[in-house]
């Protein structure tokens, strides 16, 4: 990983044009809402497995992703909540795999249910960033020699996302979200594009 170079580039990009928006530290945004609320966001879309898979056969990297996220919006920019859902990582089928028991056809499907603690920050009226840590319940569905087995294990992992929303009514919107789900312990990850519906479920 060229992380040091990446970080320095990140710093340069961050520190460059952003100073145009710099303000004295004690100035508060007069338009910022003063109350707290709970917002549930539902999303569904396409997931593409983006992690390397070094094998002499092709895997199907395309899948579906669905998610639900409940966030507490306090009276400042930073928000906190939880996220779950379901995503397919990849599938593959093999013909005539040689083993000491003879040749067999084999197939595998790998999917995951995320369980993540999520921070988010609204950076523009319509644009929000998300980052989360937690993990994924990853499930293997494997068939060979005519026998199928399902096994699930937890992998530590992360998520990051950016969303754009358009308000429909006072408490309901519609938008899109570009999201990365990474079950890093298992080396699996998808880049997802979702249609999302944020719903304000409570406010005080």
């Amino acid at each position: 990983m060229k992380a040091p170079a990446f970080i320095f580039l990140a710093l340069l990009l961050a520190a460059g044009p952003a100073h145009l928006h710099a303000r004295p530290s004690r100035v508060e945004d007069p338009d910022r809402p003063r109350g707290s609320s709970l917002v549930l966001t539902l999303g569904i879309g396409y997931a593409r497995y983006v992690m390397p898979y070094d094998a002499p056969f092709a895997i199907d990297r395309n899948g579906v992703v669905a998610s639900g996220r409940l966030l507490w919006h306090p009276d400042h920019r930073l928000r906190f909540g939880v996220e779950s859902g379901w995503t397919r990582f990849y599938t593959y089928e093999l013909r005539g795999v040689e083993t000491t028991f003879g040749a067999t056809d084999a197939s595998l499907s790998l999917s995951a249910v995320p369980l993540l603690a999520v921070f988010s920050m609204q950076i523009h009226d319509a644009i929000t960033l998300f980052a989360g840590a937690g993990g994924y319940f990853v499930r293997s569905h494997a068939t060979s020699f005519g026998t199928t087995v399902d096994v699930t294990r937890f992998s530590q992992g992360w998520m990051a996302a950016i969303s754009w929303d358009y308000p429909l009514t006072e408490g309901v919107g519609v938008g899109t979200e570009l999201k990365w789900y990474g079950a890093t312990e298992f080396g699996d990850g998808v880049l997802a594009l979702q249609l999302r519906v944020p719903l304000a479920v409570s406010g005080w």
Partner: protein
Amino acid sequence: MQPMLRHMFLLTALLLNASFLAAQEAAPAIYYPAPRAAWSTDVSIGLRVLTVPRAIAEEEINKAPAVDVQIAMGLPWQFAVDGRMVLQYVTNHFRAGLRWTYRFGPLSAGIGDDAAFWFGFFDFEGFDNSMSGWINYPNLSLGWDFGDVRLTARGEAIYLMSQRSLAGENEVSSTKNRIAGGALTLVLEQPFWHDTHALLGVRLAWTKFHYQSWFAFSTFDRRLLFSELLFGLLL
């Protein structure tokens, strides 16, 4: 004016200018390296979660949450002291440092040096081990104030000064000074809820030795990536 006097005048002007900025500064911060008002103090309490590289941790503990208590206090002449305790029962790290800071508009910078003593012990079934050591962290910070959010990047070298380990009655100690690697910390400090501020960050260390993985008795003579997530509340 003699060059010496001119330099002193300029230096004094700079210091006064920065002190004035510091006096304006009120939002709490631990990492953001703006000059602080003399004796003003901020404290944070939080958690750090270290990911030990798989090469060292194998299937054992590879996530190790630790309690993180930090304090920063301003001194005259744009100096500041800070201290940090990272407590994890089996491993504990105490660090204190002195820093000189400067602010130019939203950009702040600091240069400092921290010394740390750490110790760890394992006396569970099958283990009778302890290790301790001294580490020096020369560091440089750069921060940007976006108004209600501050971003700070801190780079530091990890300089191992001495180390001592025990296995039962057997002892190995080393006083060989060496640079084990370096670390980069990126931290956001911002308001979270009412008047409570939060810090959220990541520390990436490329090092041959990380004190929190001492119990692995790593043998690798190569730098590995230790990543740490930081979360804290500024009191």
